[in-house]
């Protein structure tokens, strides 16, 4: 029972900690507590580890990774404690850990509660709420299938997104620049653009030669619409003063498009790329669930069919990391290209 008392010992401590943070004079207090928050985070993770190792799993539970998860949690706890106590000696790693200590603390506590509520006391019904070790088990035991799904999703998404973004960009610039192109494309855009790409799903799957090409088309469509509209509005809103300056300095039309219109429109283009990314994720998952028979969307569907809820959570976590990673990458590119803007949103 020592572990239980240990975790009870952790909780009130952290509550005080939270109260202290909410206190009025917290900047000096925060510097003082910077190290101790890390220590508390270490204790929370230790509690998670000890709970996993020392308390017996519920009857219905049959999890092979309980001990490993517990041991890993203890290892993480030790690492957090050492790094936060010795932060000055660990340079950037130490500083980074201190900054994240409150989050680590919260995570440790949540994991402890989660472990208790599922694997140890069964407060939440199985199999709908699997414990952490069940999810870890998916990553260890079902890795090949999961990895293959990730790879299939990434391939499909990247291909469709690249095609959609490129076509959307070119179309947007053309409409924004040329009245003649606008005359023909604008009505089509208005007619087709607002339609959710998923509405094309049934048609796409029997008109295209393969479900892969159909999905690529749908993802490109979902990406292309916002990219087109925002690129277009970006190009259309470029101030005439810029063109006047460039023209008096001897610029030809190609220079006006490539060196004036496009750079000036780039902030809008990135909003479009961002929106397109969100829309294309939705299409990707639906397309995989319905037609492609591969990828994370399909994996989710498959897991649901087998009532393998741990697999669903595991896949959801991976999916969220991938989507978030994609957006991070997009924002990195944007920050690099739009370094001249002040006050861009940090993701």
């Amino acid at each position: 029972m020592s572990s239980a008392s240990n975790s009870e010992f952790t909780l009130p401590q952290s509550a005080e900690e939270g109260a202290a943070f909410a206190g009025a004079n917290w900047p000096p207090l925060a510097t003082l507590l910077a190290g101790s928050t890390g220590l508390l985070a270490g204790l929370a993770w230790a509690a998670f580890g000890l709970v996993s190792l020392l308390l017996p799993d519920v009857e219905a539970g049959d999890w092979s990774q309980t001990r490993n998860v517990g041991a890993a949690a203890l290892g993480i706890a030790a690492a957090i404690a050492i790094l936060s106590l010795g932060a000055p000696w660990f340079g950037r790693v130490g500083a980074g850990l201190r900054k994240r200590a409150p989050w680590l603390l919260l995570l440790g506590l949540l994991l402890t509660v989660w472990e208790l509520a599922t694997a140890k006391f069964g407060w939440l019904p199985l199999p709908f709420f699997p414990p952490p070790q069940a999810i870890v088990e998916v990553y260890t035991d079902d890795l090949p299938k999961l990895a293959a799904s990730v790879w299939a999703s990434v391939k499909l998404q990247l291909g469709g997104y690249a095609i959609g973004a490129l076509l959307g960009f070119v179309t947007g610039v053309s409409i924004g620049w040329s009245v003649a192109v606008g005359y023909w494309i604008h009505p089509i855009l208005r007619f087709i653009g607002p339609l959710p790409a998923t509405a094309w799903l049934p048609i796409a799957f029997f008109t295209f030669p393969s479900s892969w090409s159909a999905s690529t088309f749908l993802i490109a469509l979902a990406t292309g619409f916002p990219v087109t509209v925002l690129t277009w509005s970006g190009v259309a809103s470029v101030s005439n003063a810029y063109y006047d300056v460039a023209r008096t300095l001897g610029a030809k039309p190609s220079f006006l498009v490539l060196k004036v219109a496009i750079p000036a429109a780039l902030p809008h283009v990135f909003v479009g790329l961002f929106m397109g990314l969100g829309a294309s994720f939705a299409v990707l998952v639906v397309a995989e669930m319905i037609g492609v028979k591969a990828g994370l969307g399909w994996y989710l569907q498959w897991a649901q069919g087998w009532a393998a809820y741990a697999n669903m959570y595991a896949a959801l976590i991976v999916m969220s990391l991938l989507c978030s990673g994609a957006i991070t990458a997009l924002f990195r590119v944007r920050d690099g290209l739009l370094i001249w803007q002040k006050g861009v949103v940090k993701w």
Partner: protein
Amino acid sequence: MVALALKQEAPLAGAALDIDDVSHHFDIDGKLLPVLDHVSLNAKPGEFVALLGPSGCGKSTLLRLVAGLEPPRSGSLTEDGRPIKGPHPSRVVVFQDPTLFPWRTVWKNVALGLEAQGIIKSQRPRVDAAIELVGLSGFANAYPHQLSGGMAQRVSLARALVNDPQILILDEPLGKLDSLTRLSMQTEIVSLWQRNGFTTLLVTHDVEEALFLAQRVIVFSDRPASIKADITVDTPYPRHRGDAYLAELRQQILGLLGLDATW
């Protein structure tokens, strides 16, 4: 100063500018707004002409016509006898707003003209020289949002000068500068003009500035602008701001602008 010094080896006279009976109006929701009313004006090669007139009378519009950004509704404009049909880098404009490209550094902004003409590769020192000329060498890699209003205006001046124009069109180029920088830039403009020999058209609100810089001062009426007076400033450079002759002319011009009572 490299490029600008180089110019002396092959002294390139400015171009003659001939504005012949030009009228212009704008359409605002179907209503006609007359802006220029039978304006005729000649500038000899290398002449420095200042344009003065009430705000909103049409000075910037006239400069846009000279630049070739818009065709006049009637009348004609010629450069060295050739009709002005569109913009050309031999006539560069320093606009009332600096209008720097925010996505380009100072250096790239100044390089704009040479880049647009496709000769930047061989002409990079000219860009450096122009930036140095306006005193911004330390800011070559700064972005426009990192500059003060006056610095931005100086960049826009450098962006024009780097092209070695034959006609330099200045639309209140010193309007945003503090009075000290303004005075030194005035001196700088005179020496640039003397060295390079370009024909200069300068719009300004500042009567003293016009008199300090120009060989001729044109005074416009209210909108629609017509030429009210064409005054020759017949005194050699370098001029002195306290000159009695200039003070007398100033009095006369202020009178033309309807401000004689205040001075």
